[in-house]
């Protein structure tokens, strides 16, 4: 199942990017190679004629009728050519904004200009942007593949410290008999949820700790405790590499989120000025309870299917 989802995410992701880039190219969305007639209004009364490799602050008048004027600086080159650095503001046309993002120059949008006649402070010119191609495929490479590969490692390494802390604390709780005690207290519930796990097995204690931490919204503690529980459950696994029924049930309880008080959501609502930031607690509890119950029932029912049963038989 995970195989198909993985394949689907990658193939669909890239296919959509290619389709979108193909459409941009065939409609020439970014007006690649098109010259735009504009006026440049030089500031501060510079001495004329314009000298090459000199920078002149100016205002670009793209369309006076639409009120699109942009602060810019003109760097004069040889043979009436030059480079224009356009500074983005609220009036910038949306398409330019996109080109600016793609160009990745920190402060300005870069355009090449061919200078025409000068009348007073006003220069007639033809402006052209560098060709913009494969926007989405570039995004897939940089924002998708490279960035997320890095994020994955950062997340995993970031877990090490907190992981070590909770595994250490859990070891103390295990040796002092606290976990066994907790497990036996919740025996009536846990033995029904996880019939394959012995009631006094350390996995029970770890799972209970994980679920309690999740309910309280302590994500930092919940993940290490959950991984500890997985490790204990794996000790009962007769076929390594394949999930047991107990693991699947435990996973679904975790993915359906049993958090009772969504602290982050409340904080964001409060900062956005909600009249009563906590009034979503009731609905959240209802939604999360129902989806957890449905998840657990589904996972139990699915475990009876032949396809899934076959996978845990030792000879297959």
């Amino acid at each position, binding site marked *: *199942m*995970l195989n198909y989802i993985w394949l689907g*995410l990658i193939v669909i*992701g*890239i*296919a959509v*990017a290619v389709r979108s880039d193909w459409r941009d190219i065939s409609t020439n969305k970014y007006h690649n190679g098109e010259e735009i007639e504009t006026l440049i209004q030089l500031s501060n009364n510079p001495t004329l004629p314009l000298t090459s490799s000199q920078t002149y602050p100016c205002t670009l008048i793209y369309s006076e009728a639409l009120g699109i004027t942009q602060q810019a600086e003109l760097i004069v080159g040889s043979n009436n050519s030059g480079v224009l650095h356009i500074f983005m503001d609220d009036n910038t046309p949306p398409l330019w904004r996109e080109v600016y993002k793609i160009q990745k120059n920190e402060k300005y949008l870069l355009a090449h200009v061919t200078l025409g006649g000068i009348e007073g402070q006003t220069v007639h010119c033809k402006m052209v942007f560098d060709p913009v191609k494969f926007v989405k495929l570039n*995004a897939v490479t940089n924002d998708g593949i490279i960035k*997320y*590969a890095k*994020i*994955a490692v950062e997340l995993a390494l970031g*877990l*090490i410290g907190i*992981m*070590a802390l909770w*595994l*250490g*604390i859990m*070891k*103390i*709780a295990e*040796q*002092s*008999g*606290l976990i066994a005690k907790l497990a036996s207290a919740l025996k009536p519930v846990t033995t029904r949820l996880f019939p394959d796990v012995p009631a006094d097995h350390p996995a029970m204690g770890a799972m209970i700790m994980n679920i309690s931490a999740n309910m*309280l919204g*302590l994500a*930092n503690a919940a993940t290490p405790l959950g*991984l500890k529980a*997985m490790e204990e459950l794996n000790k009962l696994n007769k076929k390594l*590499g394949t*999930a047991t029924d107990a693991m699947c049930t435990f996973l*679904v309880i975790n*993915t359906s*989120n049993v958090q009772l*008080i969504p602290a*982050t*959501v409340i904080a*964001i*609502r409060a900062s*956005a*000025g*909600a*009249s*009563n*930031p*906590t009034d*979503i607690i009731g*609905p959240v509890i209802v*939604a*999360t309870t129902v*989806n*957890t119950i*449905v*998840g657990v029932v*589904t996972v139990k029912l*699915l475990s009876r*299917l032949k396809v899934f049963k076959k*996978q845990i038989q030792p000879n297959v």
Partner: protein
Amino acid sequence: MSDIIINIVSTISVVAIPGLILFIVVYGVIKKVKIYEAFVEGAKEGFNVGVRIIPYLVAMLVAIGIFRAGGAMELLAKLISPLTNFINMPAEALPMAIMRPLSGSGALGVMAETIKANGPDSLIGRMVAVMMGSGETTFYVLAVYFGSVSITKTRQAVPAGIIADIVGILMSVWIVNLIFG
């Protein structure tokens, strides 16, 4: 009333972890456990677990990254938008429903944006908040938990997890419409 709840919530989240650690350590001392040795012995495993999940996390996050960056999310939203009317879900809440199981930080961003655009007390604002609170980053949890014990055959966990996610979204829409609609 709201202030009292916020107070309780913030107190719990501050007190819970130090309190729990203190309790376990003191209980260990009472039961004559060599707490320092026990802690170090347990903590040794932390590094291994962290390193073990890297390949699984890279596989999952890169696939999700490709899906997001290429614009497939927007296309998916467009494709299933006819269905949203059917369940009384405003179209603005749909990106949140798609993002929630895929990316935690992404979902948080979408929620904050949607709340800002529509107002925290609007129906849409409340709906995305409930989706955020009642959902979980399913694919991240699957990758990390199964990855930590090197499991690749996930059996019924994935379909059941996805069904639970869909039910969670439907419930969020239904209950927010019921109470605030």
